[in-house]
């Protein structure tokens, strides 16, 4: 299973939640599979998907799923400490760990060598850290959303590999405003 297969598999879970999606191929693949207003596509700022999702979860009550990657988490690893100390129960971080920098040509990341993001997350203070296969990710995510008392970090170990895809054609303000409309903040669209 690669990222595209996994994103397909979790579509039904994503549809009722607020989704922050990592820059590059993850967002482009998600857009291609099933574009939705409750998907916030990152067009820049690699590394910050988990942080944007955390800020959002702290600010309103809907469940937030940050879709992140191993390369991006490695770039902003302090995020796991912040999540371990501050994440509210309406927050789930899904790290799609394919051991490679998919958007830049599948160069290997350190999770393909010695680094375990599961161990890092636990060491950083995250309480419910689940490392699982792509197939097990659906159940792990459902459990995270159903648990109203705890936040979760799910590390989904999948294969590298991407589908050929175009950049997202929606402009950033449209992404922003339709997302905020879904939450109920923007009224004018």
């Amino acid at each position, binding site marked *: 299973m690669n990222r595209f297969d996994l994103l397909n598999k979790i579509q039904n879970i994503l549809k009722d939640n607020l989704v922050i999606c990592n820059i590059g191929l993850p967002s482009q693949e998600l857009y291609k599979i099933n574009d939705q207003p409750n998907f916030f596509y990152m067009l820049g700022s690699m590394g910050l998907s988990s942080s944007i999702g955390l800020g959002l979860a*702290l600010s309103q009550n809907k469940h937030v799923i940050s879709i992140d990657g191993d390369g991006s988490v490695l770039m902003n690893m302090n995020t796991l400490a912040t999540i371990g100390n501050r994440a509210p129960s309406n927050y789930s971080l899904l790290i799609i760990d394919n051991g490679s920098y998919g958007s830049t040509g599948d160069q290997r990341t350190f999770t393909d060598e010695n680094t375990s993001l599961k161990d890092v997350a636990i060491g950083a203070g995250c309480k419910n850290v689940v490392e699982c296969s792509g197939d097990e990710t659906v159940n792990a995510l459902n459990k995270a959303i159903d648990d109203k008392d705890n936040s979760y970090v799910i590390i989904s170990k999948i294969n590298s590999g991407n589908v050929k895809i175009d950049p997202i054609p929606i402009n950033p303000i449209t992404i922003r405003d339709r997302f905020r409309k879904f939450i109920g903040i923007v009224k004018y669209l």
Partner: protein
Amino acid sequence: MKISKKIIDNLKKGGVDFYLSVPCKLLANMIAILENDKDVYYSAVPREEEGMGICAGAYLGNKFPCIMMQNTGIGNSVNAIVSLLQLYQMPVVFLISYRGTPGEPVGAQGGMAKITEDILQTLRIPMLHCSSEKDLEKISTFSKHAKVVESPVAILCDFNLMKDDT
């Protein structure tokens, strides 16, 4: 404490209700005030760039965020400011302790001080430079301005303004 209280009061008057900080000794009093303030959200955060991401999410969730940091933090955050906050036009207040300005005892702080305003100017971020207590009265209007222009704005608090606020 008087200066710090005035700054927080004016930020709150400007509508700011979500605060993060990467610490600075000049921000210590403000952090102490916020830690005991039940009306707003406050948390420490390990790195400024990460804080920019959290602020972006807070804005999406209808909060008006502020990140408090040293001017060095701007250097850590340039890409997040440009390709997140500015790209999506998100209002965030940067409350900056302006290390390296006159009164500063640590010579090494002078480097970032020399280029802080140039960086902010290059980024086209509106600036409010506070060097006296009277300047602090402008903070609430200036904060509201961030929402009007949908942009991050920067409030710079000089070393000498903050240093005796014990």
